[in-house]
């Protein structure tokens, strides 16, 4: 058996590290995209400023950390708070146009993204900022005979924890119940005496906090730069679309798939790498076309349920 297994491990071996990178990247995208899908599923808002909220988190960690654990924790708290605050601000800006069409809301959030990006560049400068992490995470660890960045391994653990907590909150708590109910029928929830404006505020703030957390934790992977907001927004959008617009499990699977495509796919097939995301979207949408056709016009994203 071992005689047969050895060549197999040899052929798999070079791709182990990109595959692990893909998991880290995918989980980062999941944390970022879950905020976007929350905005979209619950508040029915296409938040084009979502990438900017991530960038805020990334810039926060670049500005605050000096390589110690304390400053990293401080950056996490500040990043989440600022992200949530920015999300709340966005909800306030959106309140006057809440009853208008999606186009208006999308334009508004894009204006905020444009202005926010300009402010970030004005404050932090147009260069890519370096991010310092605690020295104990700077090294590498041994993974199946390879050296792998310790930070990414820890990040995988932390992001998986966030994902699990998020899924539990949505599936098991009263707040999560309210969120799922709003996704299914916002008007009925309003009839039950829950103020829709407060739901929107809460959702945008939580989404902002998630984006901020993703920015703080993911800064060593997708670092703070003027293009960060665009990159994160695009990848999150692809994840949300691939994930079927609403289910936690679908979003997680899509995020991991996109992460693998961006790392393992590039390592395996560099020639067609630019088109891999396109191809993935086409394949997934084609496979599920019938289901999507029935589902999209009604838009009943399922949270916490089967994908």
């Amino acid at each position, binding site marked *: 058996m071992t005689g047969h297994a050895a060549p197999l491990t040899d052929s798999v071996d070079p791709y182990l590290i990109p595959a692990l990178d893909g998991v880290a990247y995918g989980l980062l995208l999941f944390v970022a995209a879950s905020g976007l899908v929350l905005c979209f599923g619950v508040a*029915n808002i296409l938040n084009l400023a979502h990438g900017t909220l991530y960038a805020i988190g990334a810039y926060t960690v670049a500005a605050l950390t000096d390589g110690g654990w304390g400053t990293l924790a401080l950056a996490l708290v500040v990043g989440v708070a600022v992200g949530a605050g920015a999300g709340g601000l966005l909800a306030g800006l959106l309140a006057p146009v809440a009853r208008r069409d999606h186009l208006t809301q*999308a334009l508004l959030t894009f204006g905020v993204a444009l202005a926010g*990006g300009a402010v970030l560049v004005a404050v932090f400068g147009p260069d890519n900022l370096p991010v310092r992490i605690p020295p104990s995470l700077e090294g590498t660890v041994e993974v199946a005979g390879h050296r792998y960045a310790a930070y990414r391994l820890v990040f995988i653990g932390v992001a998986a924890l966030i994902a699990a907590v998020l899924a539990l909150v949505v599936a098991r708590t009263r707040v999560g119940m309210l969120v799922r109910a709003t996704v299914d029928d916002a008007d009925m929830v309003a009839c039950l005496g829950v103020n829709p404006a407060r739901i929107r505020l809460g959702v945008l703030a939580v989404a902002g906090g998630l984006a901020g957390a993703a920015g703080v934790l993911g800064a060593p992977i997708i670092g703070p730069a003027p293009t960060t907001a665009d990159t994160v927004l695009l990848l999150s959008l692809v994840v949300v679309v691939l994930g079927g617009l609403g289910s936690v499990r679908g979003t997680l699977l899509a995020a991991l798939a996109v992460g693998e495509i961006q790392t393992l796919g590039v390592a395996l097939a560099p020639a067609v790498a630019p088109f891999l995301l396109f191809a993935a979207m086409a394949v997934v*949408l084609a496979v599920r076309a019938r289901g999507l056709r029935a589902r999209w016009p009604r838009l009943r994203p399922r949270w916490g349920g089967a994908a």
Partner: protein
Amino acid sequence: MTPTLGRRLGQAGTVGALAVAVAAPWLTDPYTTSLLARTLVLGLVGVSVALLTGIAGLPTLGQTGPYAAGAYAGAVVGLHVSPVGVVQVLVGAAAGALFGALTVPLVVYARGVVVLMITLAIGELTVTAASRWRSVTGGTDGLAGMPAVQPVWGMGVLDSDRARYLYILIVVAVVVAVVLTVLRTPAGLLLRASRDDEARMRASGHRVTGYFAVAFVAAGALAGIAGSLLVTAQQYVSPADFGFEVSALLLLGVVIGGATSVGGAIAGTALVLAVRDWFAGLLPGQAPLLLGGLFVVTAYLFPRGVAGFSAGVATLLRTRTRRGTARPDPGGPGEGPVPALAAPVRGGRAHRGPGAGT
């Protein structure tokens, strides 16, 4: 104002605008002329956005995709095959239509904000692909060194900004005239009806998805033509011409122009581009901040564009005794910007006309 008077005024305005557009290169310097040529090109992309957003009710942020496809196809043909403008325009149209046909299955089953999301992803992925596919697109460096364009076989080459501008003006005018003509046929009516009440159209046996698919491919062809004209205008093409900001500016221009009007789309796009360039000159480096503010202000002031705004005011004046909302009745063709969008995607709250059964 009587309808005939309104129509006459509209015709007079169109003729006046055309006259100014023809005379413009003699009234301004070459630099402004080249800016105007680019504005015309983007105006044509704006028409393609308005066709989808306003007339078919599929709001799009991704027409930069077929625009880029047409531009690169036109550039490659211009570099390696033929300097003839007509050939480049046709190749651009074919490339844009092909792009539309390839991406239509991703879009056509979705509605409302989901379309925005998917088209945005498509547009952005196109830019990413364009900047990485070096062998064809030249990557982020772009393609340069295009030989001067010859409009048709046997004609001289376009060697000045004025000549290029006039050539682009003619092509855009012809294409827009074709679009307007087609929209006046039953085809345009079917598209608007599908936007306004899809369920009723389906119940009457219309293949709404098919109509939207055709509109999407046609809009792709329009954007492709605009792409090939962009190459003629600036003799250079790079992924920066198709960024996210361009999509958003186009959408803003189309919304300001009233979303359902072809002329409004061109005027709105021109206005937004002029304001952007004005901002850039006014406060160098601060343009994105001001532009972001403009988006926000527009969202507050003109939720359905200037045309929709005036239509809303008119409805409000006429029906002051009725309940307060100034939402125009989605009945009349051409007015009432994007009711398909205004209607919530989820159940409930859908105050649509009687018999709009869903």
